[in-house]
């Protein structure tokens, strides 16, 4: 062919150069195409941003100023079960055996960042000086964790315990060596311990559900307000970045007038259904059963099942209402300032786990907010993983909230009609997607952990870095203790959470619709209160 012949010449012929660069027009066309597409995409994005006035930046997080970290806060842990252990780790104290376990696991699975994250967790300058658990094995483990100041494994474990075991929480509260307590007992003990602690002037971090009965809500709120101790309820979702961003977006009216909110907490594993392991060393000798029963009116003989799986009985907890509905409600209360609903109807049953439990494993609650013109609906099964997310539905769009945030415009939206008609907004594609930490993959180790992670309850992101939400929640509490102010999930928020959850539990148990009398601040069973 001619081009081969041309190579015989010593210099490049014009023809040869033309052939060498024959594809340049293709590159020109390519460049033009890319430019057109980029311009079009950015125009659409700019137009959406301009029209909606939204920002894709991480939310501005409220910071507590003037925190003096120099003096340690002396903390006591009351209840070192599954949650108590997690709270201790979030506060910076892990059992040496756990450190070893994480280290081993990280060697086998490079996605397992638990140790790395624990070690990089900020030192909150806390001293765990007291531990209280009614099961000897857990009490010993708590002491080891409290004394693990250097966050080391078993081989480098501290030889001396720096923490005292108290057999009764009252002795701990009487000690001058305690400034604050973390209460992670079963729910039936929450109120009594929190009240006693507040009366002793100790600051309180208490797990959800805040109380076991509705009467206790009033008692606890009164004492906390009266004493002025720093109170934080354990809804760590308060720290989830996407929830904070969701509030920003909702406040800007992105989805229009809200009319229906659906939340769900489905999960499908024995652990998720509170069928926790019974420790082989559990016995009447190692467990203080009488003290465990404590304020429960219904006294029963020693039962390992009841001790370890207490969430399944009304004597100790409030089932899905107090355990999981509260997290969902608190997330939405944070975003929408829901407050206490006007009414509630709940239903459900024990449909799958027929293991002698009293609390339902399928549970629904429908709350009405006539003054806000919307319904808040909670639905849960402990025997199905079908997740429906947290969805806020408005006339102009809907928002799905989890670890990330997705907003779709509604095809029939009035607000977006012009933009939809112009083709700027396509209702099939999100108009807003906020996905913090999307460049990283994380190992989440169990079905229950995956459940919590998907709800933004396990970890969140700060400056793109994954952080345990419980750590941030405890940090907020201790920062508030140091600066003498109340944290985000304070007693007012706790009051709303607890009343709302009890309305559902009472409705289910008594088969009546429950109303809230806003003026008298009491619930009314079965007859409507004035709106």
């Amino acid at each position: 062919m001619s081009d081969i012949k041309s190579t015989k010449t010593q210099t490049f012929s014009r023809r040869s150069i033309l052939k060498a660069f024959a594809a340049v027009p293709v590159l020109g066309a390519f460049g033009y195409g890319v430019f057109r597409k980029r311009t079009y995409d950015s125009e659409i994005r700019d137009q959406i941003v301009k029209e909606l006035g939204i920002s894709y930046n991480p939310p501005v997080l409220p910071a507590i100023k003037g925190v003096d970290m120099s003096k340690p806060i002396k903390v006591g842990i009351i209840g070192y079960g599954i949650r108590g252990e997690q709270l201790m780790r979030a506060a910076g104290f892990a059992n040496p055996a756990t450190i070893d376990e994480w280290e081993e696991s990280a060697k086998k699975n490079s996605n397992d960042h638990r140790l790395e994250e624990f070690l990089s967790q900020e030192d909150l300058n806390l001293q765990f000086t007291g531990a209280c658990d009614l099961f000897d094995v857990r009490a010993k483990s708590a002491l080891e964790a409290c004394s693990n100041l250097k966050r080391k494994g078993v081989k480098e474990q501290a030889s001396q315990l720096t923490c005292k075991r108290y057999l009764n929480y009252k002795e701990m509260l009487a000690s001058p060596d305690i400034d604050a307590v973390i209460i992670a007992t079963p729910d039936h003990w929450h109120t009594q311990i929190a009240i006693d602690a507040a009366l002793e002037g100790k600051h309180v971090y208490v797990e959800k559900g805040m109380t076991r009965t509705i009467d206790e809500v009033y008692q606890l709120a009164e004492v906390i307000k009266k004493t002025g101790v720093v109170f934080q309820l354990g809804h760590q979702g308060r720290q989830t970045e996407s929830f904070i961003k969701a509030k920003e977006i909702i406040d800007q009216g992105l989805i229009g007038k809200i009319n229906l909110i659906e939340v769900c907490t489905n999960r499908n594993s024995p652990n998720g259904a509170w069928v926790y392991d019974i420790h082989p060393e559990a016995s009447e000798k190692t467990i203080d059963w009488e003290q465990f029963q404590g304020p429960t009116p219904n006294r029963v003989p020693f039962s390992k099942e009841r001790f370890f799986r207490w969430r399944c009985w009304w004597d100790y907890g409030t089932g899905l209402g107090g355990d999981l509905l509260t997290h969902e409600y608190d997330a939405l209360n944070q975003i929408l300032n829901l407050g206490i609903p006007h009414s509630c109807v709940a239903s459900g049953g024990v449909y799958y786990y027929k293991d002698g439990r009293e609390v339902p494993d399928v549970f629904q609650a429908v709350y009405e907010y006539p003054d806000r013109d919307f319904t808040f609906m909670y639905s849960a099964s402990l025997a199905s993983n079908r997740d429906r997310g947290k969805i806020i539905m408005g006339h102009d769009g809907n928002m799905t909230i989890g670890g990330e945030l997705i907003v779709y415009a509604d095809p029939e939206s009035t607000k977006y009609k012009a933009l939809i008609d112009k083709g700027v907004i396509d209702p099939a594609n999100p108009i807003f997607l906020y996905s913090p930490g999307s460049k990283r993959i994380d190992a989440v180790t169990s079905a229950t952990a995956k459940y919590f992670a998907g709800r933004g309850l396990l970890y969140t992101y700060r400056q793109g870095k994954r952080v345990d939400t419980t750590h941030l929640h405890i940090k907020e509490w201790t920062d508030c203790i140091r600066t003498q102010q109340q944290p985000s999930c304070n007693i007012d928020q706790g009051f709303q959470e607890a009343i709302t959850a009890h309305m559902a539990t009472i409705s289910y148990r008594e088969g009546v619709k429950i109303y809230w009398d806003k003026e008298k601040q009491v619930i009314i069973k079965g007859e409507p209160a004035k709106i």
Partner: protein
Amino acid sequence: MHRKNGFHSYSNSQLTLLVILRILIGWHFLYEGVTKLLSSSWSSIGYLADSKGFMSGIFLSWAGDPDVVKIIDFMNMWGLTLVGLGLIMGCLTRISIIGGILLLAFYYLSPPPMVGYTFALPSEGSYLWVNKNLIEIFALAVLYVFPTQQIFGIDRLIFKKRIRD
């Protein structure tokens, strides 16, 4: 089509179609690369994490290491872009073709379309064993054995000396 002086001699239609094929594949690579370069949020992590099959252990372990992911992201973005440019311009074409085949082999093996594998990432078609990655690999192999870059391409200047010798 026959070889002449160690080079292919094509009919006009053969040459035209081969060059078009080279440019189209190049365009595909270049746009994939440029889009990733221009997108601040793109990462290979989702793709790696969705891996199935005999290579999945390696891909998943890569996905778990942020530093490795950074390297893979960099190599993908620039690899795709340079392979694309090479193919369109007929510049260092053989290296580009080999690079392209390697990249495609990774994409093919990360989630191979085998019986019993399902994926989190949505697929735009239905595939069994043969998918578009595999076809593109063989299209590149065809371009390797039927080169056009020394007829239409910068390689005709780069390799001029060697050709003359």
